[in-house]
């Protein structure tokens, strides 16, 4: 997928990041604010989880007890408190999400930067490699890798991170290529500025917002991937994550017990966090995309007014 991908991702009018852009265009959007609030809330819960939750593995009541005053979300197939399990799961799921996203962003960002900035042979080799990785189906590869290489948290983070960087690399490369061709970069280069200065002073600041937006989207993908891997019984057996809770509910036959309280909440948590990430990441990308600000077709029409009186 080269020509087609490139055509789809190359912005016709380049993104230009200037001071105040993030504040005026991104942070003004209600979508971004809502997404950020949701994420902040979950991060807070994750940080405070040792304080907020009781021992999530302790059996505190009968198996699949319906929600009650003592256990507002009931108990799971092991008789553990669902609320505590969810809170503990928040920590692990977010950790996997953020850590894997950072790994991906680092790999993808470096490859995209090197490829776009140096161009020529380096670009050809790196992008050829990226194209190979892109067409290999990522989630099955993760599942296979997790099945083969074991089930520790670190392994899972690395597996997700090492496989999910391709879109980042392509995105960063496209933006770097367009920035590299801008006149101020050409001029600095013509003046004899070194690569470190060109990248650090001119290129990276133009790429950073896009990279951040992309990383936020990667968090969502990684949390998702974790639920897949764990659902197939390939998660770290000693840890509790949202994916693990869905798996437990399924294997413990919560369905047969009609224990909706054991199944619904972990999925809702995943969905909310993924939604939050998507809202933040997407609205950032949209705000940076100048092509979305124009629309030549609308259901609304322009208005009519009476002619104002001539100013005397």
């Amino acid at each position: 997928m080269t020509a087609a991908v490139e055509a789809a991702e190359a912005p016709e009018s380049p993104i230009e990041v200037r001071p105040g852009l993030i504040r005026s265009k991104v942070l003004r959007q209600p979508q971004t604010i809502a997404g950020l609030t949701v994420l902040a809330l979950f991060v807070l819960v994750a940080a405070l989880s040792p304080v907020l939750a009781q021992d999530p593995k302790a059996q505190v009541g009968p198996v699949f007890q319906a929600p009650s005053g003592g256990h507002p979300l009931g108990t799971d197939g092991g008789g553990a408190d669902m609320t505590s399990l969810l809170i503990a799961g928040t920590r692990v799921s977010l950790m996997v999400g953020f850590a894997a996203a950072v790994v991906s962003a680092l790999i993808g960002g470096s490859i995209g930067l090197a490829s776009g900035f140096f161009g020529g042979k380096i670009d050809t080799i790196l992008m050829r490699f990226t194209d190979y990785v892109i067409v290999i189906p990522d989630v099955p590869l993760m599942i296979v890798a997790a099945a083969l290489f074991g089930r520790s948290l670190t392994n899972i983070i690395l597996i997700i991170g090492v496989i999910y960087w391709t879109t980042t690399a392509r995105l960063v490369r496209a933006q770097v290529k367009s920035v590299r061709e801008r006149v101020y970069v050409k001029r600095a280069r013509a003046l004899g500025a070194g690569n470190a200065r060109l990248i650090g002073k001119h290129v990276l600041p133009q790429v950073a917002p896009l990279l951040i937006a992309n990383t936020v989207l990667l968090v969502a993908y990684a949390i998702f991937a974790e639920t897949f891997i764990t659902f197939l019984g390939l998660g770290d057996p000693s840890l509790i994550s949202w994916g693990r809770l869905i798996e437990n509910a399924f294997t413990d036959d919560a369905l047969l017990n009609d224990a909706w309280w054991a199944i619904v909440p972990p999925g809702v948590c995943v969905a909310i966090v993924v939604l939050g990430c998507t809202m933040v990441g997407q609205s950032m990308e949209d705000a940076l995309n100048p092509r979305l600000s124009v629309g030549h077709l609308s259901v609304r029409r322009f208005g009519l007014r009476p002619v104002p009186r001539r100013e005397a």
Partner: protein
Amino acid sequence: MTGLDYVAKRVAFACATVLAAVTLNFVLFRAIPGDAVQALRCQHCTVQFKNALRKELGLDKSKWEQYKRYLVDLAHGDLGSSVRSQQPVWDELWPSIKNTMPMLALGYLFAIFFGTIIGVIAAWRRGTFVEKAGLWSGLGFYSMPPQWLGLMIVLFVAGAVGLPTSGIKDPTLGILGDASTLDILVDRIRHIILPALTIGLVLYGEYALIVRSAMLETLGEDYVLTARAKGLSSWATVWKHGFRNALLPVVTLGALSLGYIIGGFITVEYVFSYPGIGLAIVEAIDQRDFPLLQGAFLLLAVSVIVFNLLADLLYFKLDPRVTT
């Protein structure tokens, strides 16, 4: 460069990728500590049996020899044998493939149909309630883990609509007398609907979002303004000048998201105990039957590569500008 050049390039790339996938597959499964036989979960197997199995599978030879043998076997359409059942992998997988295909196709059709319609309408009716509804429904389904959505459907939908939630065939069918072909067909479809719906909904979310943003970008192009100036109605403009152009990124991104979709259907088949490739993979993981897993993964990888090639060629057909 001519159009033919483009096709040649894409086909060459697809072939190279298949080889890369084959190699990756080989390397991945040889990189594990121990080997496939050791990993097999089998309590009754003796050491002698395992050694014999090793010899049979060629695991006693050097890695390079193994790789060559692997390539030669593949060239003959031989994906190896399952360590558990001793049956050729292809024979093990073929029935699953036949089960997966119609289910996936149904889900895909559902997603493409509704995703495209809702995406187009959401972009066209920018700023209205319709857009918000389309956007949020898309975002919602897009954010749900497929296996969880499957569980939700089992829990809240299946009972209400009276559709089976597990397997592919009613075990009682044909017991109380011969079932007609129609009965079998209806039974099959009843089993397919819910897993297909799950996949369809997840994909619907993705497609609706992609189509919407591609349409939004297209509607900002100058030729859309020209079309309106020419007197085209709003609907004609969307259809004649927006849709086909917006399809371009959809084709690409749709093919790119295949990997994710495959991840989704593996878990969904597991939830519905639907005997397709996904379930075969889950069982292979469970039994540590690596040759089977290897074969299934290769099969998925090659089909994704083929779909990407098709997407590339479709893109070429849709966009006259593509020549490189």
